């Protein structure tokens, strides 16, 4: 089943990417095999494994290996990308219901996978609702169904293998799921010739499962795990817990009865390193001593004996060894980003397109709901008939009743009533509205405005494809003015921009405030705003419209901070001939990307905006 969707090993061997020449300290493939074995030891306990790799021989080999390690009688269920909720969770089995004359519940795929593994295909594109269902089942160890007249609670414990085929950073498995998976594995740069069959077998796995419950974990190991997680900036406590379980599985696999430094290192490599959001502080500089909160009094006496630090000298080294192991395992691309310090400041909602929105007319079909057709909703005939089917007997009886009482005796094959109507729901990405906020003051205004106008027009040309809108605010003299309300129309934009005035003072604060206000309006209508501010960052008109450089600068910075609170995507383009720190500081306060563009030309500007939004 697992090998069904890929080319076989020998024919596809030539497409394997070439491996880098240097030999890694611990072979990536060995770690991948270890991950498969550890997952097989405790699929449900580890939650899951996220396997980032394009379909190809290496991934096939890994999946084959996993299949071999799982006992043959355990279910493996594949979840296709667009699975319906009814199939995933279970619901009414219509055919069986009609045949039996009583409600028959259909077991969902998650219930079927009890004790086994769920394979999630193309996990980077999985719908948020599917991800939420999987998360709920992983958390509670049961599937709770409240659908189509069926109420059912089915216990199910399974592990997930998420096949992540994301090609770039924007395609990621939903974070809700990743947070519940223990192991994150990237097979991306493993060459086929590195991928040897691993030397684990089912017997070992089964033996390890038997030992799993008895594995002891001492405080040092726990401290090493939690300490490493903190040092790498892995916030979610689920990750630490998962690392603990993986360490335990590792000890069981190795035939030990207590977790040792190797097990903790393996857990740190497989679980913690791929989630790092910061590089650990250098060893000579101990992590900041945080004041421990007063222990809640109700817990005090329970763990006292466990809290006693064992008086062994190797206490510190263990954590360092683990941390080093984890650091060495941080994937290269992640490492590069960490070194740039880019992770912490990453925007909350990264991603190119707007947020997803449920509309009634356009987009991808996303299930059905009860409702009236018309007014923009489309009738789903199949679902309507399905909804009507169970009630036919009742309705037939009612008809004979009315006929007997002298009513009209209609002879209907299937009676569909108003309540049966089901309409199709659609889901679409919400449109992005790019708001240009242009400094129209002073002498350079005319030039800047012309460039901004050019960029607006270039972006508008793209709008027909991307379904985006643009708007434009100019600020000069005493305040800001909305020159172009959000529009998709090229003609309207050109007309609105034609008579653009320039000159006067620079009321920067007023401009930023106006942008926040407009962006808020866009968000309320379900759009995603992106703000592009063209300025040199030097204000000389206060929020009240009075001249005064110092107060104006203060006002601008306070507006910038308010802007950051609104958490908008933004780009500050510094258009002064010689970029100065003012605009950069402003960008920092706004939480915006800073781009010095002294000779802003429309094409470069349009390109930069597209990169941000």
């Amino acid at each position, binding site marked *: 089943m697992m090998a069904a969707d890929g080319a076989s090993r020998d024919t596809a061997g030539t497409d394997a990417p070439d491996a880098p020449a240097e030999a890694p300290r611990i072979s990536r493939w060995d770690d991948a095999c270890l991950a498969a074995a550890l997952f097989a030891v405790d699929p449900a306990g580890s939650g899951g494994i996220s396997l980032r790799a394009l379909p190809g021989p290496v991934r096939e080999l890994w999946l084959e290996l996993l299949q071999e390690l799982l006992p043959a009688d355990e279910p493996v269920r594949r979840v296709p990308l667009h699975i319906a909720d009814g199939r995933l969770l279970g619901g009414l089995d219509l055919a069986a219901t009609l045949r039996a004359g009583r409600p028959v519940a259909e077991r969902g795929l998650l219930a079927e996978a009890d004790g086994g593994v769920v394979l999630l295909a193309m996990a980077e594109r999985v719908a948020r609702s599917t991800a939420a269902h999987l998360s709920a089942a992983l958390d509670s160890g049961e599937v709770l169904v409240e659908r189509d007249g069926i109420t059912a609670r089915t216990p199910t414990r399974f592990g997930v293998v998420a096949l992540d085929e994301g090609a770039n950073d924007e395609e990621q498995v939903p*974070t809700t799921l990743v947070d519940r998976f223990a192991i994150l594995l990237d097979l991306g740069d493993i060459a086929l010739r590195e991928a040897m069959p691993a030397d684990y077998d089912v017997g070992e796995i089964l033996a390890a499962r038997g030992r799993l419950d008895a594995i002891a974990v001492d405080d040092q190991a726990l401290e090493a795990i939690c300490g490493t997680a903190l040092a790498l900036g892995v916030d979610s406590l689920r990750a630490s817990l998962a690392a603990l379980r993986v360490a335990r599985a590792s000890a069981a696999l190795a035939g030990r009865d207590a977790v040792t430094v190797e097990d903790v290192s393996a857990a740190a490599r497989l679980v913690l390193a791929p989630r790092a959001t910061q590089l650990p502080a250098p060893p000579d500089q101990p992590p900041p001593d945080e004041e421990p*909160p007063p222990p809640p009094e109700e*817990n005090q006496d329970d763990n006292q004996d466990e809290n006693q630090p064992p008086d062994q000298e190797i206490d510190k080294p263990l954590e360092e060894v683990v941390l080093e192991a984890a650091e060495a395992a941080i994937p290269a691309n992640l490492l590069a980003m960490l070194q740039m310090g880019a992770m912490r400041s990453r925007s909350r909602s990264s991603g190119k397109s707007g947020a997803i929105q449920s509309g009634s007319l356009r987009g991808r079909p996303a299930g059905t709901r009860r409702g009236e057709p018309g007014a923009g909703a489309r009738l789903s005939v199949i679902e309507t008939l399905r909804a009507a089917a169970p009630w036919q007997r009742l309705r037939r009886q009612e008809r004979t009743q009315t006929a007997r009482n002298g009513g009209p005796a209609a002879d209907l094959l299937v009676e569909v009533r108003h*309540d049966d109507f089901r309409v199709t729901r659609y889901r679409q990405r919400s449109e992005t509205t790019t708001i240009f906020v242009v400094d129209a003051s002073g002498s350079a205004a005319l030039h800047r405005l012309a460039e901004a106008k050019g960029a607006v027009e270039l972006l508008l040309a793209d709008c027909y494809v991307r379904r985006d809108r643009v708007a434009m605010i100019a600020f000069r003299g005493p305040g800001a003015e909305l020159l172009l309300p959000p529009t998709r129309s090229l003609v309207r934009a050109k007309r609105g921009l034609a008579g653009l005035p320039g000159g006067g003072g620079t009321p920067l604060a007023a401009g930023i405030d106006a942008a926040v*206000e407009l962006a808020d309006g866009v968000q309320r209508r379900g759009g995603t705003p992106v703000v592009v501010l063209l300025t040199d960052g030097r204000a000389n008109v206060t929020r009240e419209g009075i001249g005064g450089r110092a107060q104006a600068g203060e006002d601008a910075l306070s507006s910038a901070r308010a802007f950051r609170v609104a958490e908008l995507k933004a780009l500050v383009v510094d258009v002064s001939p010689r970029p100065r720190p003012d605009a950069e500081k402003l960008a920092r306060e706004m939480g915006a990307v800073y781009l010095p563009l002294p000779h802003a030309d429309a094409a470069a500007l349009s390109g930069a905006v597209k990169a941000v939004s």
Partner: protein
Amino acid sequence: MPVAFPFSAIVAQDEMKLAILIAATDQSIGGVLVFGDRGTGKSTAIRALAALLPSMRVVDSCVYNCDPEAADTVLCDACREQKAEKGKLKVRKSAVPVVDLPLGATEDRVIGALDLESALTRGEKRFEPGLLARAHRGFLYIDEANLLEDHLVDSLLDVAASGINVVEREGLSVRHPARFVLVGSGNPEEGELRPQLLDRFGLSVEVSTPKDLETRMKVVRLRDEYERDPEAFIDKWKRKDAKIRRQILKAKENLSEVDVPDATLQSAAELCLKLGTDGLRGELTLIRAARAYAALQGDDSVGVEHLRRVAPPALRHRLRRNVLDDAGSTTRVERAIEELFGEASAAA
């Protein structure tokens, strides 16, 4: 149902625990919303609530768990008829329901619909109550509240506001009481909550992951212990859970006795005025929450220190977005408290 993690074993997250206890003490508080980071025990705390709640008196044989002491207007049709006929109602004890609204739930199961089984087997039309009926006088929990389908949110809001569920479908016309405490949790990174739904919650709590090693180790250790042997773990924490249950029970009894002096009312009004919260709902919730908190503490009068403690969860989601203020809503509430009531006193 798998046994829930014990409430008393939840480490730190004091504000969340307090908000849940306040809602359990005074159900009229209007629900709790817990928003925050992943893996902070949001769902764990709420699911643990069920085990804590003291039992309640219900009308025997009533499918809606009607309160025998309730006024006629709040009773369901069957109970009202029974009361008119016999003059009194038979009473039994029952657990307070904590109903899970799963994300994939369909509308018919939430608001109720024709009973499929009796329609198929006996050809009868019978109303099958939904989740809203089951949650009457108890709690309705929505995990990932921000991912709930819009049309379900609409039906929920309508019922939550009126306390009555009206079902008109398949030629069936049913009205039944459905007063429940809405409890929601979610992660802001998954999407914002609709403002209408946000406003429904009396208290809103922000949770974040603990950052110190000690607490984190404790959380991991306890959770691991629980997962390896849930029954033994629950047994170990049973007495502490029972203590909290007694605390809730006592607070419920004393709630009406707790005095709210005029000075406290005035302070609450000043605080709301200063923060510019919309409408009177904020003020009302603030007072109620403070009273419930005082009752939980065993105090017989509501003072400023009670207001100070419950003001952030009662008010932070009611602030208008202020363009001129860069601070987050929690900071704004705290700042206003400090300006009005001075630095935290030792009594608080």
